[in-house]
């Protein structure tokens, strides 16, 4: 049996360390350590509540708009303010643009370059995969950044700049859209769709979204040369490597739902645990037993939570707290969202092999196709000249919660206002859920479970299987701890 410490993981957002116990060529136990603490929940205390709109996006440079959205929703909730239809549409567009840019960044920049590593050089699929996906010098590395950058012109128009925008306000958007700008948005989205349909999928978005089972996906892949699209290329490598047998966690999936329009959400809110379940947010707690945090004996709901770092806490091995839903570990992310929402392809894949590396990546690409189609609809529904932003007044004593789905999963902000100032501000980010440490029952978090059973080759100090599993979650470590 060996104990190794793996890090730094790069091609994740922020810094990450993982300790592994290895026996008989596989991981038997894992501990996830978020080694960076900045203290936003402490920084926010005492401030004007509106300052949360400026400060919380700086939690994260890759999910900045998601943080803004959660803060705006929390402030709106605290004053019972609702957005006008144009405001809902433009804020959804900003959130979707960020989420999709993140899905692309994850696939091309963070995840796929591992297939070009020298450890795979002898594999029959290696040549084309390395040529396409190698970091910096692969052919994909020239094509996708300009497509993403051009897509983010949507953000430049709607949000001023990305990351870190203040266009997102509790009552809607500070940036009204004029008639000619609405047409520009359609043009920008159309070009992005063209890139996806040409290079990423090699097929129309409608065809991808219509895939309704694992068998249908296999027929789709078999009907075309494996390298004719980046999605197909991934499926080919994944099949060869057995990535559907790698990285299974709890198979308990949560989603706060996303893209609110009036009373409906594009993606449903809920919980999946061997079937659809009721999601009760009142049962969320953060356990501090294995975190470097001062804490009382009982885990608290974030509406009462406190953050006091304690470097010397004996059992603490990470700055990350352990969020639990009704005492249980859940996984969040695109896979969770699509499961809860009930997309037939994802339901079928998970029914066959659970939540694993392959299915996490497939879910992100599927969601990219689904949401791009929805964005087109939202832009068409914009009405220039109608209001984009409602206004309200925050009471001196108030509380609110802002729930949103960032690219990586469920994000929540819980705000308490006293005497007109922030009395408490607690954040639970998606990776806080996914990369949580053990709780007081010694139950490991999602990643810690997913790593168990990962094969380790002799002499490997940064096992490639572990890298695939970690990156399949697309952790955002700066959000995780904040």
């Amino acid at each position, binding site marked *: 049996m060996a104990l190794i410490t*793996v890090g*730094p*993981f*790069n091609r994740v957002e*922020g*810094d*990450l360390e993982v300790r592994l116990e290895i026996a008989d060529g596989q991981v038997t136990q894992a501990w996830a*350590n978020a*080694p*960076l*603490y*900045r*203290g936003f929940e*402490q*920084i*926010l205390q005492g*401030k*004007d509540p*509106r*300052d949360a*709109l400026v*400060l919380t996006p*700086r939690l*994260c*440079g890759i999910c*900045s708009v998601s943080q803004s959205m959660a803060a705006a929703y929390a402030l709106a909730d605290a004053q019972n303010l609702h957005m006008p239809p144009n405001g809902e549409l433009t804020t959804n567009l900003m959130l979707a643009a960020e989420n999709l840019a993140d899905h692309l960044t994850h696939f091309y*920049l*963070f995840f796929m370059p591992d297939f070009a590593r020298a450890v795979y050089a002898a594999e029959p699929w290696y040549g084309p995969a390395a040529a396409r996906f190698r*970091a*910096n*010098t692969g052919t994909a590395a020239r094509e996708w*950044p300009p497509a993403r*950058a051009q897509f*983010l*012109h949507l*953000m*430049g*128009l*709607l*949000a*001023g*700049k*990305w990351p*870190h925008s*203040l*266009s997102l306000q509790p009552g809607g*958007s*500070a*940036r*009204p859209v*004029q008639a000619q700008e609405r047409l520009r948005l359609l043009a920008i989205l159309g070009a992005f769709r063209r890139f996806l349909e040409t290079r990423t999928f090699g097929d129309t978005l409608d065809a991808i979204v219509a895939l309704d089972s694992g068998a249908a996906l296999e027929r789709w892949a078999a009907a075309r040369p494996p390298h004719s699209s980046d999605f197909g290329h991934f499926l080919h490598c994944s099949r060869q490597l057995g990535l559907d047998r790698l990285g299974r966690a709890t198979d308990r999936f949560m989603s706060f739902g996303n893209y609110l329009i009036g009373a409906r959400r594009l993606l449903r809110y809920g919980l999946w645990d061997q079937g659809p379940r009721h999601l009760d947010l009142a049962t969320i707690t953060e356990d501090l037993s294995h975190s470097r945090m001062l804490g009382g004996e009982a885990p608290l709901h974030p509406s009462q939570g406190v953050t006091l*770092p304690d*470097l010397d806490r004996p059992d603490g091995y990470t700055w990350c707290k352990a969020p639990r839903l009704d005492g249980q570990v859940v996984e969040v992310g695109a896979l969770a969202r699509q499961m809860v929402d009930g997309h037939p392809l994802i339901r079928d894949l998970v029914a066959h092999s659970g939540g694993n590396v392959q299915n996490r990546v497939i879910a992100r690409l599927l969601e990219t196709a689904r949401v791009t189609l929805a964005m087109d609809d939202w832009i068409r529904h914009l009405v*220039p000249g109608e*209001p*984009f932003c409602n206004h309200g007044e925050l009471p001196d004593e108030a509380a609110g919660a802002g729930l949103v789905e960032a690219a990586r999963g469920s994000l929540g902000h819980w705000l308490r206002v006293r005497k007109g100032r922030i009395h408490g501000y607690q954040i639970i980010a998606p990776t806080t859920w996914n990369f949580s440490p053990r709780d007081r029952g010694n139950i490991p978090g999602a990643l810690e479970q997913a790593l168990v059973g990962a094969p380790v080759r002799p002499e490997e*100090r*940064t096992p490639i299987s572990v*890298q695939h599993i970690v990156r399949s979650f697309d952790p955002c470590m*700066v959000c995780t701890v904040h």
Partner: protein
Amino acid sequence: MRSNTHVFPVYSRSVTDNTHPMRNPDTNPMTPELVVLWLQSGGCGGCTLSLLGAESPDLTATLGGAGIRLLWHPSFSEASGEEVLELLDGAISGTRAFDVLCIEGAMLRGPRGTGRFHVLAGSDRPLIDWVRQLAARARYTVAVGTCAAFGGVTAAGTNPTDACGLQYEGARPGGLLGTDYRAGSGLPVINVAGCPTHPNWVTETLMALALDGLTADDLDAYRRPRMYADHLVHHGCTRNEFYEYKASARRHSDLGCMMEHLGCLGTQAHGDCNTRLWNGQGSCTRGGYACINCTAPEFEEPGHAFADTPSIAGIPIGLPTDMPKAWFVALASLSKAATPERLRRNAVTDHLAVPPAVRGTKPR
């Protein structure tokens, strides 16, 4: 920017490893290489994500064309785990040569001076220790973003992590490396400040280092490259007609000038945001919200809510740069008296309620 004499050596002393698997084919073989090592600490990674959006040309073409190679970057490079630690050890010992150390994110000195609010994964050593040793080897040290330059948002509020910049603590010189620190070229830390930085503030600074070098005269009083810092955000703001007449927005989504009521500091903020533009054709003010002066030290603590403009008797406390107060007050009153109806009404609506008049073609 440059005088006729080349003050600093143009050619890199880095060894070009022909067998290195990451050799960038975009690099012009005739251009000497500038090798960049990039680390992240107490920040959000937003400056890197902004950099990824570099356009016309994209990041790979921009860097490659200038002979700039990334030895390692946490988001862009293949190397992970022990490969990185070996590389960093080599950079410190001199076996892995590099020219530029880029640091993104604030330097976390706490708790209690230990630096252990950020321990580099896999190493059990605080990031600030790695930075001190690498900065001692660098020919140029660049702070990317306001966090790395001055402390930034990470140093806001009670600054629970004792965060600071590489060579500044807020507006005070010192920071992690101290006032006496100079990189191998003789320059202090170059502060490419911004929250986030515009991609081309970073690429053009690196290009300048690769092609002509930079002198202390190329940096302003806060050691920000004057190429972008010698401009005000006010230059090129699309709301300047409203500004002229002090036709002011009152609430978010109003079209008017945001200086009077919504906290805009564009008339004081150093940056070329409204001429260079972001993500196509955007900027903060074009996005409908105040400039919060994010290239400045201590912007994160303005002393009031960001969305407010503190004022006395209706006169904003922070005046436009270089403008004498008495003249500002006089001009402002005159402007307000002369405000055309179109501007007065459009300033407080969210769409063009009154379009500009169409005049006849004959001169009056």
